[in-house]
């Protein structure tokens, strides 16, 4: 039981996938136009990440996937994404209209896939895997919110012309990574 907090804190903040492994920056940098959309997309991504990690872990425990592992993971992620799409559509029609272009693409989010491959490759026990499957999605949601807020701020700032768009966001991301690396000593 004493391992829970280090893993949880680590996956949310210190070993946050989006900031330390640099996965899914492409999606963080472009998805969602305002606060609400970013929150909707981010929480959808978090749910997809957690649920598909659990499912694929169980599948990999029961069946020896062999060379079909990537295809099976991809199918799991696609199915969960479809499910989340249905839920968003059912709960909030207006929101669904504005995010339906990017929701299916969350299946191609590399942070989600990274966690799937990583948890099965590490051969984690059930409890650490469960905590990782809770913590990492929260970390991803955190990253989505952070990037969304910065994009809103950058939209009204005077950026040098060559740095407009993606480059200035990457500079910002580099500073975030630097700042979070200051927390390394906690664990």
């Amino acid at each position, binding site marked *: 039981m004493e391992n829970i907090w280090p893993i949880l804190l680590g996956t949310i903040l210190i070993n946050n996938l989006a900031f330390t492994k640099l996965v899914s920056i492409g999606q963080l940098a472009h998805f969602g136009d305002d606060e609400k959309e970013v929150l909707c997309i981010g929480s959808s991504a978090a749910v997809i990440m957690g649920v598909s990690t659990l499912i694929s872990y169980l599948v990999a425990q029961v069946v020896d996937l062999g060379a079909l*592992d990537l*295809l099976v993971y*991809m199918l799991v992620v696609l199915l969960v994404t479809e499910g989340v799409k249905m839920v968003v559509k059912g709960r909030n029609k207006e929101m669904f209209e504005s995010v339906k272009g*990017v929701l299916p693409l969350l299946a191609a989010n590399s942070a989600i896939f990274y966690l799937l491959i990583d948890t099965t490759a590490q051969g984690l026990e059930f409890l650490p895997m469960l905590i990782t499957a809770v913590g990492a999605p929260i970390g991803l949601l955190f990253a989505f919110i952070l990037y969304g807020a910065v994009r809103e701020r950058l939209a009204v700032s005077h950026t040098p012309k060559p740095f407009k768009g993606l*480059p200035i966001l990457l500079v910002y991301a*580099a500073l975030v990574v630097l700042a979070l690396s200051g927390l390394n000593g906690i664990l």
Partner: protein
Amino acid sequence: MNRLENKPMGFFGNNPVLGLALGLTTALAVTNSVTNALGMGVLTFILVILAAVLGAVVKMVTPEEMLIPVNLVITAFLAKLGELFVLAFASSLATSVGIFLPLLAVNSLVLYATGAFHKEGSFGTSIMKAFSSGAAYVVALLVVAFVRELLGTGGVNLLNPFNGAALFSFSVLSSEFTLGLFTQPMGALLTVALVAGLFQALSKAPEEKGGK
């Protein structure tokens, strides 16, 4: 994904990775050495061409709303193909890039090349698009990796990815003056940002992308 529709890909303006953030994960993670960048770049290039061919064939029988899921399955299949190939013939590359090899399954450049984002378009144009975006991707990867390895380790050491034999190497900075930062994730972001800025400045007509 309006940003991806009907935009010509170029080396400087609209570079697939530096302007449009396609396949950025791979670009950030494997560019710590020129060898890795070359290996993964060429592998991605081959996968992009294969994806364009397969995607164009599958598009004829797929309903439009299922295009992205179907193309993702194609991408995963190709990534597994590439992974097995690299594991068999270039195991040193496979060990040094690690998990980013199977992660090609969600590389958005390969997904883009399957034609998931441009609904119409003939077989020829999609292959041409894949070819130019793949080539631009390799160039971007090499430039970023060159800068990172030069600043991070003081020189460039190019190995043959198939057997690990040294092909070419030089060293300009002595080890006291190297910046270890550039081999870290933060250096990756910073280098990609600077190179992207440079490429956008070099492009003749800078694209107005705003803050989006």
